[in-house]
């Protein structure tokens, strides 16, 4: 047997040098997707399709059950919804709810911002915030309504109080954990530029923690919206007026069930709009553009 020319090579074989084909000569380098593929890829369209299917199931079930007092059909609900809007009954109630909601939401976010800033600057502040969130986050906001009514009476202040409670803790918790998890490198970069105190928080920590802050805003919004409707169900009965929650409970009392469903539909529509239009737009313009979105 002949000694191998290349001792490291177990199976002796010649070297090879190839020439590559120019990408322009490939059959397909890049090709636009077909219209059908584009439509199937559209998340919005797919979500709308899901909603249409759900509405169809509802309609079929409603017709099969044929009992307007238990489950009115989808079409009856939409009709009641349109009538309630056209009669000018629904929209002022929606507006009343949203006004209270925005006050409570803004208050909760502002206090959360104060607490987390304090927690970022001092260690005792962080421990203070962690203890408070551990205590109050599990406490359902609606459980505070009786106390709020006792303290502030039948005023919008009572509603704002429970709303602030429902927004504040998830918001503070998320913002704080977002700040804590900002990478050490980014922190050093910020310090390197000579940023200190509030400028450092505003220019480095807030944008770097923005995904968590946005999550906090979304959770806070959902909690506030739920708490508000629930609070109005109680609050409305006592004061004899109010927002969307009152619209629902009042129509139930007069057994106008399609209107009850129309009220619930309004709650759902507003929730969907805020989630898919407002928050989605903010996400697309910020964390998605920056490559910071996790999903």
């Amino acid at each position, binding site marked *: 047997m002949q000694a191998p020319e290349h001792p490291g090579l177990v199976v002796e074989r010649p070297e090879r040098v190839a020439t590559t084909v120019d990408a322009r000569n490939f059959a397909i380098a890049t090709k636009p997707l077909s219209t059908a593929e584009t439509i199937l890829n559209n998340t919005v369209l797919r979500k709308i399709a899901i909603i249409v299917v759900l509405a169809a199931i509802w309609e079929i079930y409603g017709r099969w059950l044929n009992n307007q007092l238990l489950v009115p059909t989808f079409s009856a609900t939409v009709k009641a919804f349109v009538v309630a809007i056209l009669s000018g009954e629904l929209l002022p109630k929606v507006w009343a709810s949203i006004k209270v909601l925005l006050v409570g939401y803004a208050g909760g976010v502002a206090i959360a911002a104060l607490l987390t800033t304090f927690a970022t600057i001092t260690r005792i502040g962080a421990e203070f915030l962690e203890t408070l969130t551990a205590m109050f986050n599990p406490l359902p906001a609606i459980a505070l309504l009786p106390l709020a009514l006792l303290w502030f009476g039948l005023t919008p202040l009572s509603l704002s109080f429970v709303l602030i409670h429902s927004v504040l803790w998830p918001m503070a918790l998320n913002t704080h954990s977002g700040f804590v998890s900002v*990478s050490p*490198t*980014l922190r*050093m*970069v910020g*310090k*390197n*530029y*000579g*940023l200190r105190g509030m*400028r450092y928080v505003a*220019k*480095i920590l807030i*944008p*770097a923690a*923005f995904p968590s802050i946005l999550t906090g805003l979304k959770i806070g919004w959902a909690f506030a919206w739920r708490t508000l409707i629930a609070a109005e169900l109680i609050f409305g009965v006592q004061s004899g007026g109010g927002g969307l929650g009152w619209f629902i409970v009042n129509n139930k009392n007069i057994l106008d069930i399609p209107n009850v469903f129309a009220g619930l539909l309004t709650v759902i529509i507003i929730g969907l709009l805020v989630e898919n239009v407002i928050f989605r737009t903010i996400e697309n313009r*910020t964390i998605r*553009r*920056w*490559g*910071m979105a996790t999903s």
Partner: protein
Amino acid sequence: MEQPLLGVEDVTLQYKTRDHLVTATYRVGFEVFASDRYVVLGPSGCGKSTLLKAVGGYMAPTEGCIRLKGEVVRQPGPDRMMVFQEFDQLLPWKTVLDNVMFPLLVSGKMSASVATERAREYIDKVNLTPYAGQYPHTLSGGMKQRVAIARAMAMEPDVLLMDEPFAALDALTRRKMQDELLDLWDEIRFTMIFVTHSIAEAIKVGSRILLLSPHPGQVKAELNSVPRTGAGPDEARLLEERIHEMLFAEPVEAAVASA
């Protein structure tokens, strides 16, 4: 004799972990002069990164002091711009151009229009002009490091601090980046301290090399690197062997003795 730009005087650095007090460097002293390409070289755990952080002002020495232009370094500042090893050192919410402009604007040194012009000039120097409007997450690792270098250089700091900036890059990109860095130095003649654990990189990038012994870091030697042009390949190889012997002398001897 010319005054040194930066003086590190018998600096001992210690930091606390969860249950230990660790001495990272012990009485390390050296001087950096203007336009030095000063390399701090040592094996992992010799405290070279900690030393650079101390020069950056992120930690105070337990002993000794660090002076920049005669002033004692007390806190981080834009006169000592740092380039880190990590790719996440760019601000993800800013485009390449905005990332380079940001320190210029924050330091209040110049107006937005002057800053834009300066930033564009340095982005051009690192050959990233076509990417100026892009966000960092769309760039490759090498491009991100180029942006970080442009950002640091645009500030025209007294000294540029580079903490293993090419260590996370693949070998081909690393060589290219070393060449580009040297080309930039030929053009601007900036002063830098460059930390690395690669002997070959130290010889290629540095004009003067500080060797640190492992754990805790102490000065082992301060050598001149080979000139960039006019030196044969043998000269670099001989220096590499010499450094290798100095850094790894003891463990090898110990191994021989026990054998």
